[in-house]
C-alpha cells in the first residue's frame, strides 16, 4: 500500500482521473435529475396516507416518508432545487466577482472600497453569516441564492484581483498596450483569459459549497419552506425516524455527499491541470 500509493496518485494526476471521475458523477446527477421525471410519474408532493414510512421496494425505490410521499421523487426534485440554487448562486458570484475583481485590480480607490467590504464579509464564519442573512430576510429560494452569493463572492473577487494585478504588468500585456490595444480589449482579451484557471477552480469549489450551505439552511428550516422537497429539509424531517426508517436520511445524505464530492473532484482536477508547478513535479 505504501509503495503503491505514490504511483496511484501519479496515475491519478497524469490522466487527471479526478477531473474525469468528478465530471462523470456530476453529469450523471444532472442527467438523472432531468431524465427521471420524464421516465417515471413522479410527484414529490402526493400524499398516500396508507403507505407511510415504507421500506424501499419496487414501487417506491427509496421508500416513503411519514406522509407516505415517494422519497425517490423527492430526491429527484430536491436535486432540482439544490442544483438550481447552487447554479444561480455560482453564476451570480462569477459575474459579479469577475467584474468587481477586475475593477479592484485596476484602481487603488476601488480596491480599497471593495477590499474592505469583502473583508467585512469574510470576518464572519460563512455559515453563521448565512443564517443571519436568512433570519433577517426570511426563508426563500432566492434569499438562499443571495446569501450564498454574498458569502462566496469575496473569494472570487480576490482571485480575479490577484490575477489582474499579476497579468496587467505582464510583458505580453505591455506588448499589447505598446501596439495600441485599448484598455477594455487589453483586459478582456489579454488579462482575463489568463485568470480563467484559478477562477474556474474557485467556482467549482463554490458550487459544492453552495450545495452544502443550501442543505444546511434547509435543514435548519431557513431554506426552502415545506412542503417543497430539498435535500436539507428531507434530512431534517428524517431525524425522528432514523431508527425506524434510516433510508429517509440516508438517501438525501448520500446525494449531498455525492454532489459535493463530484464538484470537489472537479475543482482538484482543474487545479492540477491548470497549475504548471504541480505538472512539473509530476513530470520529474
Amino acid at each position, binding site marked *: 500500500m505504501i509503495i503503491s500509493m505514490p504511483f496511484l496518485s501519479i496515475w491519478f494526476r497524469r490522466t487527471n482521473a479526478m477531473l474525469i471521475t468528478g465530471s462523470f458523477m456530476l453529469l450523471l446527477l444532472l442527467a438523472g435529475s432531468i431524465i427521471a421525471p420524464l421516465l417515471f410519474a413522479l410527484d414529490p408532493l402526493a400524499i398516500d396516507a396508507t403507505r407511510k414510512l415504507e421500506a424501499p421496494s419496487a414501487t417506491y425505490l427509496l421508500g416513503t416518508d411519514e406522509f407516505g410521499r415517494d422519497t425517490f421523487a423527492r430526491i429527484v426534485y430536491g436535486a432540482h432545487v439544490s442544483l438550481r440554487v447552487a447554479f444561480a448562486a455560482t453564476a451570480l458570484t462569477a459575474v459579479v466577482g469577475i467584474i468587481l475583481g477586475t475593477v479592484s485590480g485596476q484602481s487603488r480607490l476601488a480596491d480599497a472600497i471593495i477590499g474592505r467590504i469583502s473583508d467585512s464579509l469574510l470576518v464572519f464564519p460563512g455559515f453563521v453569516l448565512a443564517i443571519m442573512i436568512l433570519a433577517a430576510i426570511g426563508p426563500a429560494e432566492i434569499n438562499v441564492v443571495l446569501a450564498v452569493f454574498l458569502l462566496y463572492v469575496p473569494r472570487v473577487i480576490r482571485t480575479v484581483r490577484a490575477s489582474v494585478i499579476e497579468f496587467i*504588468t*505582464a*510583458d*505580453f*500585456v*505591455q*506588448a*499589447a*498596450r*505598446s*501596439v*495600441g*490595444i*485599448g*484598455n477594455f*480589449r487589453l483586459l478582456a*482579451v*489579454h488579462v482575463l*483569459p*489568463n485568470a480563467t484557471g484559478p477562477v474556474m477552480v474557485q467556482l467549482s469549489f463554490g458550487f459544492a459549497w453552495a450545495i452544502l450551505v443550501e442543505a444546511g439552511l434547509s435543514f435548519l428550516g431557513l431554506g426552502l419552506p415545506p412542503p417543497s422537497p430539498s435535500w436539507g429539509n428531507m434530512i431534517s424531517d428524517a431525524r425522528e425516524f432514523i431508527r425506524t426508517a434510516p433510508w429517509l436520511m440516508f438517501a438525501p445524505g448520500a446525494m449531498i455527499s455525492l454532489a459535493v464530492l463530484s464538484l470537489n473532484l472537479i475543482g482538484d482536477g482543474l487545479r492540477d491541470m491548470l497549475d504548471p508547478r504541480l505538472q512539473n513535479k509530476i513530470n520529474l
Partner: protein
Amino acid sequence: MKHVAPIPAESQTGTSGSGTTAFHGAAEPALEIRGLQVRFPSDQGPVSVIDGIDLSIAKGEILGLVGESGCGKTMLARSILRLIPPPGRVTGGKIMFDGVDLLGLNHERMRPIRGDKIAIVLQEPMTSLNPALRIGDQITEVLKAHRPLLSQAERNALASDLLEQVGIQMASQRLTQYPHELSGGIRQRVVIAMALVCGDVRLLIADEPTTALDVTIQAQILELFTRLQAERRMAVLLITHDLGVIAQTAHRVAVMYAGRIVEIAEVNQLFDSPRHPYTRGLLLSLPRRGVGLPKSQLPAIAGSVPKLSNLPSGCSFYDRCPHHLEDRCQVSVPALEETRPGSWVRCHRWRELPAFELPADVKP
C-alpha cells in the same frame, strides 16, 4: 548621413528643454527628445531615473543606446511610448514626433501612434506573447486596432505576409499556432512582425531584442533588423548592453550612465577613440583572449552603479572613475560638450585624458 547630436543641457540637472535651443545636425529627425526627465517617488523623495536627456534620431538611422542595467535605457524607451509604469512619471521635457509633443497627448490620442507609427520590440520573446492566444490572432489584433476597415481575410493575408518577411517559413500554418509551440528565435520574429504589421512604422524601438537569445539566433535577428530597417527606411532605437551588437548594427551610439547620456558619437568614432572614462571602461571590459593577461583575469570597471537615490554630487561616475579630480569632478556635473563634429562627451577632463589604446585583438 547627417549626424545628430544633443546640445548640452545648460542647467546641470538638465531640466526642461527651454535652455536648449539650437540643435545640431538632423535636418529631418524622426524623433527628438529634449530635456526628458522621469522620476519615481521613493522614501527619500523623488528619484530621477532619467535626468535631462537630449537625443534625436534621424530618419533612417539606427541609434544604439548602451549602458548597464538600471541606467535608464528601458525607461527612456518606455517614455517615448508613454508606457512608464506607475508610480513613475515624466516630470519634464518634450518628445517631438511628427511635429507633435508625445508627452502632451492623452492616452486616447497616444493609442493610434503606438504600433502604427512607433513600435517597440521587448527583450523577452518568451513572455511578450500572450500564451492564451494564437499568434495569428495576436498579429491581426494590431491591424484590428489600427486598420478597422480591413476584412479578416485581408488581415490574415497581411499577417502571413509579414511572417514571411521576418523569415518565418510556412507562415500561414504558423498563424494558427500558440506561442508555446514556437522557439525563442521564432517568437522574437513574431514579436517583430507584430510591431511592423501596420507597415507605417517610422520609429522602431528595440529594447534588448537579442539579449534572451543564443548567439546564432542573435546574429539572425540583428540581420533581420538591419534588413527591415533598410527596406523601410525606418529610424531604429536599438537598446542593448552588448557593445558587439552595437558595433554590428548601429550608425550612432549614445552611452547612458545613471540616467544621463555621457557620450554620443558615430559608431566608428566611439570604438576608435572613446572619450568618456566610462565608455573606455566598457570597451576594456569586453572579454578577450591572451595578450599578456592571465586567463582568470576579466577586466571590469571598479565599483558598481551608484544608487539613483544617492548619486554623487558632481559627476555620477566620480566614484568609479580612474581619472577623477576631487576639486572639479566632485563639485559640478559636467556638461555634454562637443569634442568634434557629431561627437559629444560629458566629462570635465576629456581634453586631458590620455589617448585610448585598445589591445589589438579586441577591435570589433
